[in-house]
């Protein structure tokens, strides 16, 4: 049985923790709004980019000479995985969910005897993966310094991927990130970006009867466009990720605040009980002392 003093100390400590989690929740909520706005603003660009590429790839008849970034190298031996995570913790299952998704993919690749290469973006992903997959990690990128998500950073990652592709260092490239559905739900995503997976059930399938004029020809546009598309996809993933991170942190901190509240209630009851018990004990002592006189 803890003493009254111990209980009092615990109550104060839980209360101050509660204050911190509450503040973190508020900060996350404010950041979430901004991140969500950014994600929405960034959507038109990647959607339009997708549309253009879709239209272009439809008009390509000569599949064999098409750019390799679109159709792949024809092999599937080396897989490059880009794992996008946050730089900070305390955001519930956010990082763990991405890592879990990525790990199951890794296991599949390894069991099929293919070569695996990993690039981690964000320090939390690196921390969690280095224990088990250290030898596979080829690069570890972190954008801790940049305050906001910007296209410039995404482009850096994109350039690294292109460079590796041109050196034939991988055949298939997939990215892992969390898609923001709403504040409570974030869905870990696995998206293949090289070769480009065509979305069969794309809504914008109306452009079929459109014969485009290309200037210069399709091949040249495509080879110019595809590297940009990779950066765009990464940028989109980063935007979704940052919205998810804040959403996830907000929910986690909200839960933490509530749990702290429950704990304080329980501890207060216990404190009051033992205080009352002490008073009763003293009274009994006084009374029995008086009786024995």
């Amino acid at each position, binding site marked *: 049985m803890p003493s009254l003093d111990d209980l009092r100390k615990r109550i104060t400590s839980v209360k101050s923790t509660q204050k911190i989690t509450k503040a973190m929740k508020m900060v996350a909520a404010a950041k979430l709004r901004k991140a969500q706005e*950014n994600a929405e*603003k*960034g959507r*038109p*660009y*990647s959607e*339009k*980019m997708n*549309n*253009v590429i879709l*239209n*272009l790839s439809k008009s390509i008849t000569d599949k064999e000479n098409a750019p390799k970034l679109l159709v792949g190298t024809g092999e599937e031996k080396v897989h490059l995985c880009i794992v996008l995570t946050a730089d900070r913790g305390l955001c519930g299952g956010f990082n763990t969910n991405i890592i879990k998704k990525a790990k199951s993919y890794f296991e599949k690749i390894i069991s099929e005897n293919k070569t695996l290469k990993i690039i981690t973006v964000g320090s939390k992903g690196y921390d969690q993966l280095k224990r088990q997959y250290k030898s596979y990690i080829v690069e570890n990128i972190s954008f801790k310094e940049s305050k906001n998500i*910007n*296209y410039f950073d*995404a*482009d850096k990652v994109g350039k690294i991927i292109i460079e590796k592709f041109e050196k034939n260092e991988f055949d298939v490239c997939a990215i892992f990130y969390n898609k923001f559905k709403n504040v409570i739900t974030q869905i870990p995503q696995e998206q293949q970006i090289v070769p480009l997976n065509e979305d069969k059930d794309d809504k914008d399938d109306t*452009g079929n009867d*459109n*014969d*485009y*004029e*290309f*200037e*210069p020809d399709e091949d040249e*546009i495509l080879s*110019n*466009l595809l590297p*940009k598309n990779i950066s*765009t996809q990464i*940028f989109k993933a980063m935007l979704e990720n940052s919205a998810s991170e804040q959403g996830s942190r907000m929910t986690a901190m909200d839960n933490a605040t509530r749990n702290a509240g429950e704990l304080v209630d329980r501890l207060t009851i216990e404190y009051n009980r033992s205080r009352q018990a002490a008073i009763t004990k003293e009274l009994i002592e006084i009374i029995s002392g008086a009786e024995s006189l």
Partner: protein
Amino acid sequence: MSNLFNIDIVNPEQSFLSKDNVFEVVIPAVEGEIGILKDHIPIISFLKPGIIRVFSESEEQSFYVEDGIVEFKDNTLSVLTSSIFDLKDADKNFVSESISSAEAELSKDNIDDQKRFLLNHKVEVLKSISIN
């Protein structure tokens, strides 16, 4: 019948410009400037450094772009670009910085002809901006 069409300029961060009352847009496509009017046939092309001029009924706007893709379809012109600014809010320092970095790039030996051409062109356009 009106002779107006829509234009959307988007960059990765946000939608930069969206108008539905333009009658002519001149874009610096990679093989030469293209003037686009209503009912142009669908076209996809990409940009070289240059000035996009947008003529609407009330005003004329000019933007500097470094690269990007244009798509014209169903009387909507979409411009996707990662680097764009309005000539009106051109930052002198930024322009002169871009010129010097492009010139530094030009002085390297290992660039191919196409890149050299694009860089020369970029310097030219940027210089014309800084004069105005």
